[in-house]
């Protein structure tokens, strides 16, 4: 009996000690991990800012709005404007094509398909999301660009003969439009996987509420599912947009890589250049400190662009519930 109670005392004191130590370790770990994200943001912001000081002191804020790009020593002049436009345009095309298709896939898997079809399909979507972008890039370069040229660009060109500025450009196949489509193909698996996951969160009671009012499947999605997970869906789209804006190698392979004023797109079938693709193209051969600084500054602009897009998206989601006009006049 005595030895038993003695043992018991010893064990309990050990237990208390261990618990405290474990807790402290745990707190240290999670706080450290959370701190890591802050540290990374600070480090990236710092090195990008320091790296781009040279170019901004040489060109001023005009760097953002100029379109010259001349790396020849003595005549150096750099401007990021065409590549900002190229980035925004190619990503906009990617989103315009990618988001509706992603949503449709997610709706089909989570709301319409029976589990025996939906489960394998969602597995395949996730598989697609894991394909490296270089694979999409190679396929686009060797196969897809000809489809785009022959099936979309040529017919449009033949019909309109350049009378509509939007489509006016000799069909070539390596241009902003192709880049946009391939980007869409790349981001669809990601956006649709997240959308599906998000839509799964909607409780069935919400769907039944809509069904019981006589809603069709589509009306139920619109009425009960979308509003419930709106912020999650926007978040999914933003994640896709982040990938599209920052995607480098795939874009470099298909966008045409124009430099200077000619890179300002006159139509969606123009050859162009994005911020990321220009950095990838020239970073190895940066001829001077100023040239290098200009490339880093492109990175800085890209960073600001992504952050800006994210902030705007979050503000959009946060908008308060709309009040119906009927209720106000009560």
């Amino acid at each position, binding site marked *: 009996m005595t030895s038993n109670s003695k043992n018991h005392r010893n064990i309990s004191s050990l237990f208390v000690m261990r618990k405290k130590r474990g807790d402290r370790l745990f707190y240290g770990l999670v706080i450290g991990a959370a701190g890591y994200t802050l540290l990374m943001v600070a480090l990236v912001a710092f090195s990008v800012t320091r790296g781009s000081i040279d170019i901004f002191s040489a060109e001023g804020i005009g760097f953002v709005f100029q379109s010259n790009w001349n790396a020849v020593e003595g005549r150096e002049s750099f401007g990021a404007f065409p590549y900002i436009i190229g980035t925004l345009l190619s990503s906009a095309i990617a989103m315009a094509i990618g988001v509706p298709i992603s949503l449709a896939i997610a709706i089909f898997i989570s709301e319409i398909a029976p589990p025996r079809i939906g489960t394998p399909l969602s597995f395949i979507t996730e598989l697609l999301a894991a394909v490296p972008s270089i694979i999409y890039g190679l396929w686009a370069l060797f196969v897809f660009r000809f489809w785009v040229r022959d099936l979309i660009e040529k017919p449009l060109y033949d019909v309109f003969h350049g009378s509509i500025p939007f489509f006016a450009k000799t069909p070539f196949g390596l241009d902003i439009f192709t880049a946009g489509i391939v980007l869409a193909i790349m981001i669809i698996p990601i956006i649709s996987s997240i959308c599906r996951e998000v839509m799964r969160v909607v409780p069935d009671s919400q769907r039944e509420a*809509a069904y019981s009012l006589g809603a069709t499947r589509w009306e139920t999605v619109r009425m009960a599912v979308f509003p419930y997970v709106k912020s999650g869906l926007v978040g999914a789209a933003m994640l896709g947009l982040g990938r599209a804006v920052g995607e480098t190698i795939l874009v470099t392979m298909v966008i045409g890589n124009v430099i200077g004023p000619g890179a300002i797109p006159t139509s969606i079938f123009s050859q162009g250049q994005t911020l990321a693709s220009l950095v990838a193209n020239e970073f190895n051969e940066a001829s001077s400190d100023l040239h290098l600084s200009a490339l880093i500054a492109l990175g800085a602009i890209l960073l600001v662009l992504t952050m800006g897009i994210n902030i705007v998206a979050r503000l959009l989601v946060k908008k308060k519930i709309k009040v119906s006009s009927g209720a106000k006049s009560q």
Partner: protein
Amino acid sequence: MAIEETFDAKESMTEGHSLTREPRINETAESTERFKVRIENVNGWYGSKRAIKDVNLNVREKTVTAFIGPSGCGKTTLLRCLNRMHEMTPGAHADGRVVVDGIDIYGKSIDPVVIRRRIGMVFQKPNPFPTMSIFDNVAAGLRLNGMRNKTIIREIVEESLKNAALWEEVKNELEKPGMSLSGGQQQRLCIARALAMQPEVLLMDEPTSSLDPIGSSKIEELVRTLKDSVTIIIVTHNMQQAARVSDFTAFMYLGDLIEYGSTNQIFMKPEKELTERYISGKFG
């Protein structure tokens, strides 16, 4: 009308057309007590599992009918067969006939979406649309079905909230989110949402199971008032509730309808031993 139909019926019987005329004959014969919902040989399935077995039951107009029975007896499944909600569960289906106002809702040309517009449903847990205001929640069904006239919408919303005994509590905060209400108020909001569609039949699936006693008694009171205008079928696991609110009670066990009769009869002198044992709390 009635005479004509009787005449018709006689005629058709003599001519041997009784099969095609059957619904009409029945209606005439039972003209003293009108049946709003006739459940005929209904089976409810989950995959290959038969959850309700050949249930036959007639529900009288403007009464409250309660489905009672232990968990898993099929009472909720049967209720969900009455507006074809059952088949929305993956793998589930139903067969048999459910005749509402002379129309078999399982008929070939019947669109379940249209059926659900006419048969309202209230669920176990209050499920208002979380992003909609109180007003919009009630107006949701009207807008869904294409009502654009704001004056009419406002009138129906007010009327429905009054009928759901919620108007006095929310009339000054209609633009607040539906989720800001208490659980009991949310459930009455859901009832108002169903009433706004002006259903003739209202299905209630254990509507008080997630509410506190005060919230529950308000819903019960409401059920007793509503039966003046709507035919109500209510599933409850609470026998006292069935005794308090219903005119007729159906007792189910393991997918079978064991006994169906007036609530007084079921609770005072049940015919089946199983019913008696359940009523007296010996199992369940």
